């Protein structure tokens, strides 16, 4: 993977809101065909970094190259062309509630291509099959479950065959089974389409399953970049503490969670 092309290259990115520093000299790269997972606790700056990687923000300090183009030098037209090569699956799906699932997925094709309706319908059906949602194109997002919304968001994100796919907290709010299925979907998309994938998550289990490399952010600085094995065996006490704390925080076992919840309810009843 190390000798493949750099799809994203960030150098010394610094950003702040008012006087508060958010990112402090972040440097990293994402290579063709790799899954880069960005991890970090609340306030570590991972969401801000993702906005920069998606070209939603332009750096004022540091450089940011996406597909070999320095994004601070791009004209509006060039930025428009670049964005057609990026796909994003947002945390909550960000599907348009006034449109059906099929119309949501078709939107980028409708806006950016001259394809006829029949071809677009076929492409939508194909992508829905890839994400295991075949036959759901006529439903509205309100009629879908959380996991299905995320799958539909993935289908929309890859409808234009992007060179880079961004996934913001794909497992957030999902039960472990659905979350694991989404991890499989991310791996399948990478294998089938060969794109670079950037995933922001706080779920260790998921990160270890899908990542080729992991970037750990802490208070706006990069603590670690490397493979899963390198992370697991990293000698730094700070990193190990961070990982162990997160692992303990992960509510993984649903049965245990239900038992705890029932216990609390019974205690509340006894107190009342």
């Amino acid at each position, binding site marked *: 993977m190390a000798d493949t092309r750099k799809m994203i290259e960030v150098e010394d990115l610094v950003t702040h809101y008012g006087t508060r520093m958010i990112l402090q000299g972040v440097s990293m790269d994402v290579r063709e065909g790799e899954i880069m997972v960005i991890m970090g606790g609340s306030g570590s700056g991972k969401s801000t970094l993702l906005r920069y990687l998606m070209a939603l923000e332009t750096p004022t300090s540091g450089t940011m190259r996406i597909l070999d183009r320095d994004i601070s030098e791009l004209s509006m037209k060039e930025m428009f062309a670049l964005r057609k090569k990026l796909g*994003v699956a947002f945390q909550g799906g960000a*599907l348009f509630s006034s449109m059906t699932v099929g119309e949501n997925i078709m939107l*980028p094709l409708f806006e950016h291509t001259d394809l006829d309706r029949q071809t677009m319908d076929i492409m939508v059906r194909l992508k829905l099959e890839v994400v295991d949602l075949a036959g759901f194109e006529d439903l509205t997002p309100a009629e879908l479950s959380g996991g299905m919304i995320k799958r539909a968001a993935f289908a929309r994100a890859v409808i234009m065959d992007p060179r880079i796919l961004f996934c913001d907290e794909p497992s957030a709010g999902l039960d472990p089974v659905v979350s694991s299925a989404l991890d499989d979907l991310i791996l399948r998309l990478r294998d089938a389409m060969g794109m670079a994938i950037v995933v922001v998550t706080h779920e260790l289990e998921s990160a270890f399953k899908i990542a080729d490399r992991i970037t750990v952010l802490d208070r706006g600085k990069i603590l670690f970049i490397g493979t899963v094995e390198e992370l697991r065996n990293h000698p730094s006490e700070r990193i190990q503490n961070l990982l162990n704390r997160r692992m303990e925080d992960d509510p993984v076992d649903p049965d245990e969670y239900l038992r705890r919840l029932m216990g609390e309810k019974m205690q509340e009843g006894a107190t009342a």
Partner: protein
Amino acid sequence: MPPTSTSGSVSDFLERVGRAATSSFAEFGFAGVLVAQSLFWLFFGPRLRQPVRMGAIIAQMREVGINAIPIVAVLSTAIGAVLAMQGIISLKKFGAESQVTFGIAISMVREFAPLITGILVAGRSGSALAARIGTMKINQEMDALEVMGINPVRFLVAPALFAMIVMVPALTIFSGFMGLYAGGLYVGIDLSVSMDAYITQVIDALDAADVLHGFAKSIAFAVLIAIIGVMNGAGVQGGAEGVGKATTRSVVQAISAIVITDMIFVLMATQMG
């Protein structure tokens, strides 16, 4: 209690005034940019192969215009009848009740039709626009549009602005007709004036300037409602509660802007003769 410094509180006050003034200028600037960008996409979008979608415009026109017809009809009828009742009572004191048609026609066409329509559309569609854009913002749908290379102004603002500019004047004309008709019915009952005679009096009372006055106002109101709705929606912060606040703020601001703009129109019209 620490001693307070008069110069300190004065400078604080001036700083607050300065900040408020700067923020207001920034908002005016943002509004201007939104209108300019919307017009750009409406006229030059097709040339750039990024047209404002007709489907979105028609959906907005249906929401802003067609769906508002019943409530505009009811309120305009009521206002027309009230104008006739009050007019007859007032003019009877001078024995001039036969001149009531003049008052109804001028008031309805120049003032009440654009005002009622503007206020109703601000309450129905301006607030809905703010809520829609605010919800889209907190659901990251605006970010999704940008990442997909779809300009949010072209996709959301331009259709709403165009629909308002077409439908608010259309509703204003409809409101004028309904109000005049209701006034005519009451005048017919109270003063035994036939509808034909009433219509002739209305036509005699009005000239092109009156109609243009009402029409121009309605276009100004349409732009204000759309831009205030969009600005409040785009400024939403803090989840569902933020959407609620933005919606309320958009209605209050739009109605205030409509009434103040109305006053400026009347002032200009009277000063210019």
